[in-house]
């Protein structure tokens, strides 16, 4: 009888745990976010993602060597040039127009300071930006990312801020015929290679983003006494901030492990958009950056249940039969809960692309007070406790 006591204790302890594992393992599927690439789970969004990826493969972009060289020169210009000037930038989304006049000061290979005067709708502000370094997932660079998705060609010359510029047009693959609108145009300074003007268009050729130098002064970067960012005055009626991206990054192997732990982290999204960079905040929020070279969509995944009381300035909307919280403006912002994860999408992209991205991401029902929800919660807790002892977690 004495020998039977330890055995009975072990059975009583391990029995419920084994039973829980057996219950949670198959039951984890409803709370595990569906991946856009999974067939039959992502609904229409997954189909769109697959179709977009297929179209990316079947129709290859046509790249002009001269256009590529011009853009490569423009991509390296901020690392070579010190300059300051004034830019006029605008963005158009559904029913909303945003315009700002910016004083910009840049130091070669260093920081960039932007300053905006106050307007009737927004206060004055100044921000200093530092480089975020190389992307952690896809290190093709801005030009490499652009040539993956768009055809490039030189379409002429123009004058911008009194300087001569070569104009490079980007077209969607398969739309190179006459009458097809450009996806974007770039004005590259013939003298310095600096990007002087940039415009992005939607499928119908309407401008959605535009930015251009009104005035520009390029300085000698070897002259340390002429750092324009030192003279970036902070508006008295506003505030200044320094923007630095989160430092913890994920590579491809780390993303694979994260998917095994229930994070979504799709490699592609409708657009088509490609996962370029992945980072994590100190609070555990995962930031996935997707881009095609013209649009940028940030997907933030955060563990927890959404407290909708904190979204007073958002409005309810329905996208592809999914209820989300939306905040209009530039960039667009969508928030919703899927299972035990809160998704936030911040997008500088066409409205249709944003809707496709939102539809492609998971929208699982939130775990409630049911038995299944409690079991799933215990399963998540066991995973989380196990991750505390995971050196790779």
């Amino acid at each position, binding site marked *: 009888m004495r020998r039977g006591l330890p055995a009975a204790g072990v059975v009583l302890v391990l029995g419920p745990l084994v039973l829980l594992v057996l219950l949670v393992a198959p039951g984890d599927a409803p709370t595990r976010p569906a991946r856009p690439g999974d067939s039959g789970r992502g609904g229409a969004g997954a189909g769109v993602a697959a179709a977009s990826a297929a179209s990316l493969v079947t129709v290859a972009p046509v790249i002009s060597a001269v256009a590529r060289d011009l853009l490569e020169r423009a991509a390296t210009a901020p690392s070579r040039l010190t300059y300051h000037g004034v830019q006029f930038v605008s963005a158009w989304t559904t029913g909303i127009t945003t315009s700002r006049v910016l004083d910009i000061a840049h130091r070669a290979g260093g920081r960039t300071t932007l300053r905006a005067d106050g307007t009737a709708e927004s206060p004055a502000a100044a921000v200093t930006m530092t480089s975020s370094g190389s992307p952690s997932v896809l290190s093709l660079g801005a030009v490499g990312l652009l040539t993956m998705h768009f055809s490039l060609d030189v379409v002429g010359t123009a004058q911008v801020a009194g300087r001569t510029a070569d104009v490079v047009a980007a077209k969607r693959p398969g739309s190179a015929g006459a009458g097809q609108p450009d996806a974007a145009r770039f004005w590259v300074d013939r003298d310095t290679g600096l990007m002087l003007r940039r415009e992005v268009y939607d499928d119908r050729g309407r401008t959605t*983003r535009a930015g251009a130098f009104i005035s520009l002064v390029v300085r000698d970067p070897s002259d340390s006494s002429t750092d324009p960012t030192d003279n970036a005055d902070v508006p008295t009626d506003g505030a200044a*901030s320094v923007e630095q991206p989160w430092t913890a990054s994920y590579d491809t192997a780390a993303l694979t492990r994260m998917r095994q732990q229930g994070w979504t982290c799709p490699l592609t999204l409708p657009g088509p958009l490609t996962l370029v960079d992945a980072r994590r905040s100190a609070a555990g929020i995962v930031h996935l950056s997707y881009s095609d070279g013209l649009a*940028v969509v940030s997907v933030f995944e955060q563990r927890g249940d959404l407290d909708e009381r904190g979204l007073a300035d958002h409005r309810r909307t329905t996208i592809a039969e999914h209820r989300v919280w939306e*905040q209009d403006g530039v960039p667009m912002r969508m928030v919703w809960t899927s299972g035990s994860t809160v998704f936030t999408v911040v997008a500088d992209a066409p409205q249709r692309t944003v809707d496709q991205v939102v539809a492609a991401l998971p929208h699982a029902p939130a775990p409630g007070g049911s038995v299944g929800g409690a079991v799933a919660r215990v399963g*998540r807790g066991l995973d989380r*406790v196990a991750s505390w002892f995971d050196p790779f977690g």
Partner: protein
Amino acid sequence: MSPHDHVGDRLSALVDGELSHRDRERALGHVAHCAPCRDLLESERVLKARLAGLIQPEPSARLLALLAGTAVPGIPLPPQARVRATTPVVPVLPPPGRGPRGGRPTGRGPSTFDGVRRPGGGPSRRSRRSIQRARYAAAGALSVAGLVLGTAFAAGGAGGTGAGTVVPPAAELSIEHDATTASLLLGDPGLVSVGPGLQGGTASPTALPTAASTPEASTRAP
């Protein structure tokens, strides 16, 4: 059998007390008058006593321990005194009127192997201790399992920041989005967007994106 018949082959049964009451009375009445039969009866008794005095084989201590371990709770163990008896067992003649056919157990109440009734009739002290230990072990196991499941339940409901419910930090997410946008697109930060950190759409008058800024709802322009 007449009183004048010798006991003969019934002598052994007489010594063992296996005769019926009537035959035993007749045999004893004959022995009282017959010297040869009386001598034979005495010799038979001595022989039986000597046979009973021989050493009996005893079970080993390990066998006794195994038997004790397999005992079912609630059923008393066989008395060790009986198993380990070393004193010779001398058969005695049953008293008159208490022969094997007349002395039957009543069968009432809990019986034991040795036919001795115990007060209360419950399990032995040793079995009660075993049951108590099993209860303690079960309670301890259930406590540990409850602690593990409770911890998992609490940890499973917590968000990444340690809270069950979360509100996405709008200002922090905007800064993070802007910072990565500028590095992914061609052009400087001003050209690629409407000024990272300076967005101010008519429907989204985002305030200054400082690290300590509050959500947009509290900073909306009038």
